[in-house]
């Protein structure tokens, strides 16, 4: 039999099939369906208009009000009310009320709700983050979520896989964020459309699970359907203490077929910045030129985990944010928040005169808690720098990892930590 990729194996297992071929359409069982305060109300409306009395499994639906929560206005409060009522009526176990709520793609893996070998669908494009644990995870529409809440199934076209191998090790300060920005810069924002991006190689093995999530998170920024990293010992260590149910581990066969393979030397990849207004407009930080910065945001589903906050704090320690810069740090979940506090990272951030926000998407999508005014420039550890993404249409977003973001806050311009 021909070799299979990890993605094909997971899809086949959930379709009750021996093997599947890229391009074919399948109906598969899902392990988890996710929706947030923007997409859940639509899915709930479609679900309720169908007059169905029960959901397929009240333990396998996650509702996370994270985008505009703490409620930014009356309409966002109403959106969450719809979710809250639905959760109570149908006994949805994983509805995360404020206080337990974190950014969905930080929260779900951390809570053990996403496990290797599973299929996760979310009415949110960055659901692909969960591929870092060796799951097949992808964004779908609200209608898909409504139907999945009824049946526990979803249909997919089996994607072709692209293999990205990162040889050697990353340089100091360089993280998964730099690897993925570099890769998107190489293949373009439509370089992986429809496809599964599989990340492998010595540098990936050396990355933390958190950095792997950062990489898979941005797979969609290259147009991909999913990103995935085969589980290893680090993955097992991460999930074992969290797992809420048994799981199965898959990996690609050595003779699996890829539509394209790329090999990079990680030791040659420098700290990256994606300049306005597309995530593939990347270059090494020292090639950006002099760009004065008004605001720095460290957080989001891309880089809002404890490892990211530690790295930012390592740069900020004993330093002060430039007086012309506003530094906003957003821990991705209550757990990250408490851990950062206990490790003394809050003291470092506050001493540097940055501020700490409750967990929320907030400014990442131009929601609230740090909107940019006309002409303002921001360095953000988020994933999209489209026109007006973080505020006024004339504002600009530079995407980077936590080390560059923190160094830019101190120096008042786009810069790497080596310049300090």
């Amino acid at each position, binding site marked *: 039999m021909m070799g299979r990729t990890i993605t094909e194996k997971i899809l086949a297992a959930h379709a009750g099939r021996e093997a599947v071929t890229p391009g074919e359409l399948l109906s598969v069982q899902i392990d988890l369906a996710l929706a947030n305060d923007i997409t859940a109300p639509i899915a709930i409306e479609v679900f309720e208009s169908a007059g*169905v009395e029960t959901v397929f499994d009240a333990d396998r639906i996650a509702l996370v009000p994270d985008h505009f929560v703490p409620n930014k206005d009356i309409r966002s409060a109403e959106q969450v009310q719809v979710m809250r009522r639905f959760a109570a009526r149908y006994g949805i176990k994983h509805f995360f009320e404020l206080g337990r709520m974190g950014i969905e793609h930080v929260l779900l893996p951390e809570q053990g709700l996403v496990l290797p070998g599973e299929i996760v669908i979310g009415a949110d494009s960055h659901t692909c983050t969960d591929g870092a644990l060796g799951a097949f995870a992808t964004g779908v529409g609200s209608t898909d979520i409504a139907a999945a809440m009824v049946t526990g199934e979803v*249909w997919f076209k089996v994607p072709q896989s692209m293999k990205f191998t990162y040889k050697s090790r990353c340089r100091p300060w360089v993280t998964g964020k730099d690897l993925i920005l570099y890769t998107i810069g190489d293949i373009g924002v439509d370089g992986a459309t*429809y496809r599964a991006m599989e990340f492998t190689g010595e540098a990936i093995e050396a990355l933390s699970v958190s950095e792997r999530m950062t990489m898979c998170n941005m797979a969609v920024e290259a147009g991909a359907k999913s990103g995935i990293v085969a589980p290893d010992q680090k993955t097992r260590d991460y999930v074992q203490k969290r797992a809420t149910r048994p799981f199965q581990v898959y990996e690609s066969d050595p003779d699996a077929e890829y539509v394209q393979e790329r090999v990079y030397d990680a030791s040659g990849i420098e700290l990256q910045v994606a300049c306005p207004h597309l995530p593939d407009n990347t270059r090494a930080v020292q090639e950006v030129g002099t760009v004065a910065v008004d605001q720095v945001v460290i957080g989001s589903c891309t880089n809002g985990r404890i490892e990211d906050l530690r790295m930012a704090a390592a740069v900020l320690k004993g330093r002060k944010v430039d007086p012309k810069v506003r530094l906003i740090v957003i821990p991705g979940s209550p757990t990250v928040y408490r851990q950062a506090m206990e490790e003394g990272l809050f003291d470092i951030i506050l001493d540097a005169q940055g501020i700490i926000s409750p967990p929320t998407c907030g400014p990442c999508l131009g929601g609230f808690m740090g909107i940019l005014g006309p002409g303002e420039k921001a360095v953000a550890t988020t994933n999209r720098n489209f026109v007006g993404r973080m505020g006024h249409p004339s504002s600009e977003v530079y995407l980077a990892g936590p080390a560059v973001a923190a160094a830019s806050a101190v120096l008042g311009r786009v810069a790497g930590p080596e310049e300090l």
Partner: protein
Amino acid sequence: MGRIEGKAWTFGDNIDTDVIIPAPYLVTTDSAELGRHCMEGVDPNFSKKIVRGDIIVAGRNFGCGSSREHAPMAIKGAGIACVVAESFARIFFRNALNMGLAIFEADGVAEGIASGDRVSVDPDSGEIINHANARRFSAHPMPSFMQDLIASGGLMAYVLKKR
């Protein structure tokens, strides 16, 4: 869902959702009304020229642009039986099937089929035949669950029928 046969109407690459159904018409979700403005951005008289059961044939990346579910609804509402293209944009692909519009992806159709040609599509085998020049193209066969879904009129209708 049976075999589809109809007259082809051809379009080029990158036909986006704005030309499929221009934004001013997004104020309704009535598919018959949307259908009256289908493809208006490239051919203002399209909906008047076609007959029920005709087929749209296009190049690469059909349906790129916004995630509006109105685009496949408009095509279906106009009476088009299916869309055959070299490739579809990812969100359009999902939306089309979820709204109950049959679509088929096959290499060579843009070059091998001309407007006015008589074309047939067999969902079971994925075979597409241009009867004007006897050329054949192959799409992935459409599995029976997906044929059921389309015959039911879309994802939610299918889900409810199955319960």
